[in-house]
């Protein structure tokens, strides 16, 4: 019988004398209760509950049919009709679900990757797929709402230069006046049956997309946090977890399984040897030495980051002044605009390697701290580079250029393309050549491991750039989509040919949460604040783009609300906008309320932690009680048997045996 039995065999409860009949009766009672509970639920809840029953399929089917018959016997009227309707709805929903599953791309590929390399490497590809969804969505809405109206009612393009090959890399020239960049759009109201205001469309499309992204990120982040960050009280990374919870069942490739077995053996040996050797308490001087090494390492890393940022900033200023003075048809000058992106990509490539060299000299208490610190340093580097670029774009460029938004869009475009090219080269040199070296020339190096953290951070960096660039170049997602598709296939091929799965896989779920959190803050928040600053405070260029002539792009909304105010019947929209959304008091109140609720929830969490501690102690006590009582039971039974064997000889003796011993057992044993 596959059902979890209520009375485990093999304990001394077995000789309580319960017969098979009694057990069967108990079973039948439980089933009837279960069926009546199920019949009271709604359809969807019932299906979920039935699916989660730990019984064999046949029993579940029986319970399902019993529950359905109980339910229909209650609703005597309209049985057939409503049942048919709900059944056809469910069938429709299931067919939609299976159609959607057919649309899920790469199902076979992902299964293969998961089968050979395990779930942590698979999480990188799933992350890539998720980013791809964002970009495809943005592409579709930008194309539909902004680009198509613009193409249909094309503005007069002033000077068209011929298409040369260099445009693909630099984005200037032929692409300058196309819809690829901000400058290719104009803000007139297209006169059609409902007049289509291009300014409002541009503003609202981009705003809606960013808001949706933000909401989706927050939702994923909180769900992932809830699933993966549990209260870690007690030893979690010990042998029990590694033995029973960490084996990856989805790996099906023989070599990979052998690898995993070796890794597990090594890790168990390591943890054993750590326990066995006495944890020597470090002397004061040793501790000071390690602390000063840590401080030195941090200073070096931050110094490198600051140095790179300064270098990029001055190079940018230099480029700006030189680009203002060159002839638009000068190819070399145009190619020199590629210098800045190349420098940025080189820094992104080399400095993390330096960071890993620096971290060799430090000593960490556990390997997880090492990974987190390395991720922190890399994030600081990448975000400070992006920060300095944004500062340069928003401060120095607008005063000096005529159509500065297009220039910013082109810079972002160049950065993305060069980053992509470097990624291709990085995979080739980093993984392919290293594999060749590792197997033929220097076998001690071994096959390279697939470095998940570094690859995910590269993806996050590219996505930040894409989010920054959306306002300045609405069709930038095209490039990002193509780039992500090519990277997916390239990484997959490189993985199969060159790499082995990472050795220390533990805590992959927590790393997932960390990556999603990094995607939200600082990546998305930074991009959003930059776009918000541009829209709110910067003066758009006078002669190009949809917001030409306005004080700030936000003034479109202001003039639109003035227009609405004069329309009959929509006064309340204007009233909400003017007195609620533009009123600071509203935001203070909302913040205050949220803070109060957060404090309240935090107190609840603290109380629950305390409760868990108490309950755990109670479990231990109950275990001791149970052991004690079982002991008592065995002793009294032994006494009883001894007394029974003496009875034939001494039947005058009164028994000192309590026949009500069964009432002293706790009821729920």
């Amino acid at each position, binding site marked *: 019988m*596959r059902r*979890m039995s209520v009375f485990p*065999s093999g304990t001394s409860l077995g000789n309580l004398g319960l017969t098979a009949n009694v057990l069967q009766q108990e079973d039948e009672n439980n089933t009837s209760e279960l069926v009546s509970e199920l019949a009271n639920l709604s359809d969807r809840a019932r299906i979920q509950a*039935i*699916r*989660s029953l*730990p019984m*064999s*399929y046949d029993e*579940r*089917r029986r319970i*399902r*049919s019993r529950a359905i018959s109980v339910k229909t016997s209650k609703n005597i009227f309209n049985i057939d009709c409503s049942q048919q309707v709900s*059944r056809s709805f*469910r*069938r429709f929903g299931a*067919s939609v679900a*299976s159609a959607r*599953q057919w649309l899920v791309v790469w199902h076979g590929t992902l*299964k293969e990757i*998961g*089968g050979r390399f395990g779930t942590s490497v698979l999480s990188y590809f799933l992350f890539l797929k998720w980013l791809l969804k964002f970009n495809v969505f943005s592409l579709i809405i930008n194309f539909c709402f902004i680009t198509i109206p613009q193409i249909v009612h094309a503005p007069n393009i002033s000077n068209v230069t011929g298409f040369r090959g260099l445009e693909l890399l630099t984005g200037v020239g032929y692409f300058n006046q196309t819809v690829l960049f901000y400058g290719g759009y104009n803000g007139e109201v297209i006169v059609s049956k409902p007049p289509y205001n291009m300014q409002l469309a541009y503003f609202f499309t981009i705003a809606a997309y960013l808001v949706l992204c933000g909401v989706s990120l927050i939702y994923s982040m909180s769900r992932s946090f809830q*699933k993966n*960050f*549990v209260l*870690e009280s*007690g*030893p*979690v990374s*010990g*042998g*029990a*977890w590694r*033995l*029973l*919870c*960490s*084996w990856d*069942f*989805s790996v*099906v*490739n023989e070599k990979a*399984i052998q690898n995993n*077995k070796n890794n*597990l*053996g090594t890790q*168990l*040996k390591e943890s*054993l040897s750590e*326990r066995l050797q006495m944890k020597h308490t470090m002397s004061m001087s040793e501790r000071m030495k390690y602390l000063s090494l840590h401080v030195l390492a941090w200073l070096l890393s931050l110094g490198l980051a600051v140095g790179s940022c300064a270098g990029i900033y001055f190079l940018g200023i230099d480029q700006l002044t030189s680009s203002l003075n060159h002839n638009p048809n000068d190819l070399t000058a145009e190619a020199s605009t590629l210098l800045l992106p190349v420098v940025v990509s080189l820094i992104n490539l080399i400095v993390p390697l330096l960071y890993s060299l620096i971290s060799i000299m430090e000593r960490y208490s556990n390997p997880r701290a090492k990974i987190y610190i390395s991720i922190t340093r890399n994030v600081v580097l990448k975000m400070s580079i992006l920060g300095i670029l944004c500062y340069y774009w928003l401060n120095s460029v607008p005063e000096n250029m005529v159509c500065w938004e297009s220039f910013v869009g082109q810079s972002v475009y160049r950065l993305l393309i060069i980053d992509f090219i470097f990624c291709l080269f990085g995979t080739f040199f980093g993984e392919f050549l290293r594999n060749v070296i590792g197997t033929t020339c220097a076998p001690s190096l071994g096959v390279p491991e697939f470095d998940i953290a570094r690859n995910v951070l590269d993806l996050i960096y590219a996505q930040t750039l894409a989010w920054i660039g959306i306002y300045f170049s609405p069709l930038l997602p095209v490039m990002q989509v193509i780039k992500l598709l090519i990277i997916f296939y390239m990484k997959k091929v490189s993985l199969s040919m060159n790499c082995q799965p990472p050795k220390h896989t*533990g805590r*992959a*779920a*927590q790393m997932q949460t960390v990556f999603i959190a990094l995607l939200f803050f600082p990546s998305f928040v930074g991009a959003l604040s930059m776009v918000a600053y541009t829209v709110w405070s910067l003066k758009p260029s006078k002669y190009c783009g949809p917001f030409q002539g306005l004080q700030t792009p936000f003034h479109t909304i202001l003039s639109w609300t003035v227009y609405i105010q004069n329309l009959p019947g929509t006064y309340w929209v204007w009233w909400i906008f003017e007195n609620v959304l533009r009123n600071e008091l509203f935001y203070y109140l909302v913040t205050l309320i949220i803070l109060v609720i957060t404090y309240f929830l935090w107190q609840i969490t603290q109380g629950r932690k305390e409760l868990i501690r108490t309950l755990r102690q109670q*479990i*231990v006590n*109950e*275990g001791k009680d*149970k*052991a004690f009582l079982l002991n008592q039971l065995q002793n009294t039974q032994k006494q009883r048997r001894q007394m029974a064997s003496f009875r034939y000889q001494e039947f005058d003796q009164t028994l000192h045996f309590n026949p009500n011993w069964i009432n002293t057992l706790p009821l729920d044993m």
Partner: protein
Amino acid sequence: MGNKQTIFTDEQLDAYQDCTFFTRKEILRLHGRYHELAPHLVPMDYTNDPDVKVPLALIVNMPELKENPFRNRIVESFSEDGQGNLSFNDFVDMFSVLSEMAPRELKAIYAFKIYDFNVDNYICKEDLEKTLNRLTKEELTPEEVNLVCEKAIEEADLDGDNKLSFADFENMISRAPDFLSTFHIRI
């Protein structure tokens, strides 16, 4: 999709859809896989619920299970007779629990069954030793094996009876969020 297939009746497919985590299309695909395992044994027509069981030896040769160290225990835990002979319903049930949509509690119950080699509803030290031997082969010496299993029981045993009951196991699972993604076989 639609009314072209004659393997199952509509009611059967509805029941499969309501009682497992698979859609109709996946059930039909699973039937194809099940049929492949023993084409002479498994009929193509399941409308009258034939009582056919595929033996253990054929099932553990599936590519998804072939290299898994626990393949025998997995198949035995889902079989009615405990010997590993699976009917189609057991087969579907097995992959349904091992799919990514099954909730944590359900997976914990079956994981406990799989690791409980002597089927006494407790994971005792011998069970842990067998698990460890399947997972590491000749890497660890017998003393190390002994030590690891003792430490594991010490860590996870809450009520102090020197073996892991289902409650202890579930408590440990709840603190391991990776479990949901690692206890998963794609088909």
